């Protein structure tokens, strides 16, 4: 079975339609601010309060979310108690891959990232909260994964270029 083409807009719209409080993190956050790297999935950090978890459940049902595995996606009972117990969920949806990460490496989660987050128009129903590029760098620096650390030179360079342009302006 071929995997669905990744399309972040309907994923974001579904989260917004269900009033989920979340911040876009990872490559998509960096790209929205000028990073030149591609992305294959959408990473978000949702707020952890019980009401928000219930809203995430509704959005995931809407998106027909399944657990991502090396083979086929696996259906699972999307349940608030179970979701709340996990730190991170790697999912496949009708619109491609969606990762929920409650506390990305090097951060304390939603409230921590909210402080420096930007409200960005990504062409969705409403502007979206996006982690600052400084916070994306913080997460990638703290990550133990080599594929995250490999992105650091481009991310640091993006921050440098943005700063330089701001200074020149």
């Amino acid at each position: 079975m071929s995997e669905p083409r990744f399309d972040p807009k309907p994923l974001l719209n579904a989260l917004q339609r269900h009033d989920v409080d979340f911040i876009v993190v990872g490559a998509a956050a960096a790209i929205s601010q000028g990073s030149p790297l591609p992305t294959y999935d959408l990473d978000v950090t949702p707020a952890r309060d019980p009401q928000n978890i219930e809203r995430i459940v509704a959005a995931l049902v809407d998106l027909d979310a399944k657990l991502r595995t090396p083979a086929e996606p696996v259906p699972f009972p999307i349940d608030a108690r179970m979701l709340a117990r996990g730190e991170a969920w790697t999912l496949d949806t009708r619109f491609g891959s969606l990762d929920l990460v409650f506390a990305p490496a090097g951060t304390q989660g939603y409230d921590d990232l909210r402080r420096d987050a930007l409200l960005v128009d990504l062409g969705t129903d409403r502007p979206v909260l996006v982690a600052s590029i400084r916070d994306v760098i913080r997460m990638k620096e703290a990550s133990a994964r080599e594929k995250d650390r490999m992105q650091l030179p481009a991310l640091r360079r993006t921050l440098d270029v943005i700063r330089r342009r701001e200074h020149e302006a």
Partner: protein
Amino acid sequence: MISADLLHEARLRAGLTQAELGRRVHRSQSQIARWERGDVKPSLETLRELIRACGLELTFGLANYDDSYDEWILRALERTPEERLAHAVQAAGVWREFQASVEEARERAAV
């Protein structure tokens, strides 16, 4: 802003407030804030001390200067955030299709 960014990043990774970090290194909260804003630059030795107080180590290395990403970043900055994301997703799709075609060719060659 390198020292400012590194200090800010280290403090947040440690989950410390500026006042808490200040207490650890016997400096005032306002001094930490000045360093983080880049108003004042700490010496390399002081920066290392501050980062150690966050439970992290500042590592050093030398690499060739590389500005090869700049052209792509500047091009991206000419687009809106929505266009940047759409472009990156499209680029990833093209890359995936290329990888799939290489894989198919490999399988055909193996038959």
